[in-house]
């Protein structure tokens, strides 16, 4: 009475399973890309006569060598910076031609006329730490983004996304051309309502 040998397992389909897994991973993994805060430097050519800007349209932020913040001549903690910047940008204190009909601020006559005129001036010391500088930049960009999000939601209630999400979709290389063409006018409109005017002064030398 001969015992039957156990039949060999058919491994022919193993390759198929392997390829299935391979394709699954190929599709689901995204290669990690770097991200950060984009900035544009001013060109070097000297402006012959710089335009006169009213003091009330400038929001000065100074970071000293001990990484402390002086905002509009007052000491401030960084956690309050975003709100202060929003209050300044959204003030809309202008009269007549310079009035801002979409601003929701206090319309304080000692603060900015309208977002188009409002300039944030950032000045840092040579010994300011880069970390704090990035934190300040982050909060100032956040102030603009918060305002743009608000206006974007008001103008496009059907879009189903915020300004920042729309911007991300727009700059994503995987988005289709038609989607980009659709988003561009919407984004540009909001951008022109709150243009990002962030000026950086030459740093002060430490005494």
């Amino acid at each position: 009475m001969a015992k039957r040998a156990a039949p060999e397992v058919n491994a022919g389909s193993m390759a198929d399973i392997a390829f299935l897994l391979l394709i699954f991973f190929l599709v689901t993994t995204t290669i990690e890309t770097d991200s950060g805060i984009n900035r544009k430097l001013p060109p070097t050519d000297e402006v012959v006569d710089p335009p006169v800007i009213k003091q009330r349209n400038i929001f000065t932020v100074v970071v000293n060598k001990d990484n402390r913040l002086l905002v509009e001549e007052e000491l401030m903690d960084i956690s309050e910076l975003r709100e202060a910047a929003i209050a300044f940008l959204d003030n809309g204190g202008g009269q007549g031609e310079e009035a801002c009909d979409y601003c929701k601020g206090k319309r304080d006559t000692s603060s900015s006329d309208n977002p188009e005129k409002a300039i944030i001036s950032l000045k840092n010391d040579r010994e300011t730490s880069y970390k704090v500088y990035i934190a300040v930049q982050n909060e100032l960009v956040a102030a603009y983004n918060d305002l743009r999000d608000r206006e974007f939601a008001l103008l496009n209630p059907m879009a189903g996304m915020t300004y920042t999400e729309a911007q991300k979709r727009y700059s994503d290389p995987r988005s289709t051309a038609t989607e980009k063409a659709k988003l561009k006018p919407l984004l540009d409109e909001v951008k022109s309502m709150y243009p990002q005017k962030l000026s950086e002064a030459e740093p002060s030398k430490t005494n």
Partner: protein
Amino acid sequence: MSKFKKKKGGELPAISTASLPDIVFMLLFFFMVATVMRDSTLMVQNSLPAADQIQKLDKKDRVMYIYAGKPSGRYSDKYGSQARIQLNDKFADVGDVAAFVLAERASKRQELQNVLTTALKVDGETNMGLITDIKQELRKVNALKINYTTRVGDYTQNIN
């Protein structure tokens, strides 16, 4: 005669290893695809600051990288503890930045030369003086699009 015949089928048959190459190739492909190549070895400390209002960096071929920070580990004996700039695989001075940018720009395709972004990968502990100097150099050669590369996180991680 058949008294000493070997008993047949007593042990299990060997498992087929025919699919092993497939599995190995699969892993190989997976890692080939998922790995990000770093084109230069880091010689400086590089713990990036955190930010959350960030935008993704452009495609890789449109970016040039400038690293800065304190020389790391084995380089600190030779180069000291002051923050330095690293371009490609070498330590550099502020004066070398302009030449580096021009060389990078010349190495790219014609249509990309105007859309290049400079990614500043700077250690959080660096003083702003160095970064300002780099920025002035970049302005001189008209490389105006910059990106402060950060990691994703709340800004409060940067304080203290």
